[in-house]
């Protein structure tokens, strides 16, 4: 029974082993600084993340090229929109170095820039050693860069898209056959859909269920707004009669003319349904609508596009820019900037538009080029022009509500409120009153004074 060789040192040995195991744990994944050698950033690894829009998904395929050129290996991650935003926000709040390049989401620009969680990019742009002149920062549409600037005008993000809401009719032939053009007002839309819904097995209307993005276009068309007078007066105005009327209109369009489970369509699912010709009309992002003219789409010959329909108080197409930014805690900012330069280079973007029909780009030279124009003309309609017209409209300033630093809270409440209305859980007035109360409470908690 006795084990003469065992002593208390067994415990000590265990402790030593445990200690030895710890040493590698405090080290992070290798981010070796640039060594000499041909490629300037040989051996560097970058962690990059963006939400799963068309453009970020496209450049994933071109990352090996990037590695060829610069020696940088990229760990690339494109989760869905809400998941991405939450993670990025959490990570940025730690000022950590978990990510080297992040997408600066439109609704978070004010929050992230204001809190000092992003790196100012002007030094990188201005430095001729880091950025060759022909990269041409001035080529980016000023309206797209604007949300990425702080109050003093310093730049914190380079935009890769301006999301613009336009109207698309995948089966315009059905509308035309019944004597309708592209509806110019919401009333016309209602009348047209009444006739056309379910003809040829095609449902009439759909919209992606990010109501915080879709609904404000209707809200403002009825004369309402999210806040009383953003960015100065942040009193939410979600319980006004205009808000209820807009919500009822949107709900009616979806419930009367939408497919099964119309409330559950994400942006990808809407695009797929339109391309397959299963659903007819939608107010949808231009970048997705451009895909109706691309390979695999069954509706190339039958689609039509226009600006979104007018409401009683006018037309307010939603416009939102997203861009690439560098977290303030990133370890190798020069390598990060290298990525941003490459990802938004004229050459790469041009190839993406030519090969994949990428729309809603932010470089003026490209938007004006013959190739791009040609790609954006689908079935005779110049969607590129619609895009530009909508951006011009947005310069009036009605999108200010979206860059308020507490907008994400309101966004969440709007999405839930509309969800309740469309699913029939609550009437519009009730649901919006609840959203108003919740938003007010959330805003107060976030430090807004009324």
């Amino acid at each position, binding site marked *: 029974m006795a084990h003469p060789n065992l002593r208390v040192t067994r415990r000590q040995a265990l402790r030593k082993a445990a200690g030895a195991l710890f040493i590698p744990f405090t080290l992070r994944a290798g981010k070796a600084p640039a060594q000499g050698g041909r490629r300037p950033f040989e051996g560097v690894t970058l962690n990059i993340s963006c939400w799963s829009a068309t453009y970020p998904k496209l450049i994933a395929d071109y990352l090996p090229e990037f590695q060829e050129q610069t020696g940088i290996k990229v760990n690339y991650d494109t989760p869905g929109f809400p998941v991405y935003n939450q993670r990025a926000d959490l990570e940025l*709040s730690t000022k950590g170095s978990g990510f080297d390049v992040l997408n600066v989401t439109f609704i978070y620009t004010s*929050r992230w820039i204001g809190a000092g969680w992003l790196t100012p990019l002007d030094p990188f742009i201005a430095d001729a050693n880091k950025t060759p002149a022909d990269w041409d920062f001035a080529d980016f549409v000023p309206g797209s860069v604007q949300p990425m600037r702080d109050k003093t005008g310093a730049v914190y993000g380079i935009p890769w898209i301006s999301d613009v809401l336009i109207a698309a009719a995948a089966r315009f032939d059905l509308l035309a056959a019944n004597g309708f053009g592209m509806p110019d007002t919401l009333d016309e839309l209602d009348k047209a859909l009444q006739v056309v819904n379910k003809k040829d097995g095609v449902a009439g209307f759909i919209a992606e269920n990010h109501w915080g993005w879709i609904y404000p276009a209707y809200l403002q068309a009825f004369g309402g707004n999210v806040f009383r007078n953003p960015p100065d007066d942040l009193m939410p105005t979600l319980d006004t009669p205009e808000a209820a009327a807009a919500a009822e209109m949107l709900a009616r369009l979806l419930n009367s003319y939408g497919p099964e489970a119309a409330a559950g369509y994400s942006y990808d699912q809407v695009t797929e349904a339109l391309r397959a010709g299963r659903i007819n009309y939608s107010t949808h992002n231009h970048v997705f609508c451009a895909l109706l003219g691309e390979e695999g789409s069954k509706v190339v010959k039958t689609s039509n596009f226009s600006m979104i329909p007018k409401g009683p108080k006018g037309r307010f197409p939603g416009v939102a820019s997203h861009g690439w930014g560098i977290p303030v805690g990133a370890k190798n900012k020069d390598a990060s900037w290298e990525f941003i330069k490459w990802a938004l280079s004229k050459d790469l973007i041009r190839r993406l538009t030519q090969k994949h029909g990428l729309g809603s780009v932010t470089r003026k030279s490209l938007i004006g080029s013959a190739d791009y124009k040609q790609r954006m003309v689908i079935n005779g309609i110049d969607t590129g022009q619609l895009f530009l017209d909508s951006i011009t409209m947005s310069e009036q300033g009605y999108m200010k509500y979206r860059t308020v630093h507490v907008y994400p809270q309101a966004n*969440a409440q709007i999405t839930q409120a509309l*969800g*309740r209305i469309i*699913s029939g859980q609550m009437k519009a007035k009730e649901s919006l009153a609840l959203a108003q*109360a*919740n938003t007010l409470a959330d805003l107060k*908690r976030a430090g807004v004074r009324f």
Partner: protein
Amino acid sequence: MPARRLAWGAQRRRSFLLGIAPAVLVLAIITIAPAIYLVATSLTPLNLTLPGTAWDFSAPAANYLDLAEDPRFTRSVWIQVKLSITTVIGQLLVGLGVALLLNGSSRVRTLARSGFLIPMVLPPIVVGILWRVMYAVDISPFHRFMAFIGLPVPSLITDPNWALTAIVIAETWEWFPFTMLMVLAALQMIPASPLEAARIDGANDWQIFRFVMFPYIQSTLVVAAIFRLIDSIKAFPLIFVLTDGGPGDVTEVTNYYAYRQAFTFSLWGYGSAIATLMVAGVFVLSYLIDRLTGVAHAEAD
């Protein structure tokens, strides 16, 4: 030799203290310090976008007063209560039933016990994904089967009336093996004589269960219920994967609400207040457990 005895006694005492000291120290650092930090944070309006809020104790009770008036918080508590009670009852019933079934002796049933363990030992996130597959209408074999036999079932996790039930079902599936094992162990300790006597007297199965078996397993059921109750408060991965608190906030239990306030909206002060209240509630329940099980070791000595 009394003097030597004393020295040895003191030496022993010292050795034991040495053994327990590191554990107590570590536990103190990793449980008490965070607890204090949590309560302290709950007294501030901490929000990381406004650095000044970190040590702002000007209105210490603000978060708690806010909570008292927050309809979403009270709603989350109510949802938690509904979830906990239904899932614990479900786990008790299913666990009891399966334990009774497995109580017979046969090779098959002894082997089956290991199989029934699987839901409980799977990583909870994998359980969430399993059930996501089962609840996704276009993919799930269950939904397809129901449609096939002419009783199509619409999506449960996006239906505000059924989402919580869907989660209860998944949760019950995941944890019934726990009660099953506990009840089985208790069943197998029932002495044979009362059972045989009852059978000889001609009692049927139900009577045997009700009058002979049940008294023996009663206390086990209560203990199991309390443990499962406390664990049900921690429910997270299922909700995260299946519904994300939705649709709307019908499946937003208190734990999830705290998570949202802290990690989605970055309202750390408010989230801390919710967490503090949860911990207080759990402490009360822990005290109850201690009463009922009598802290087995101290008694057994």
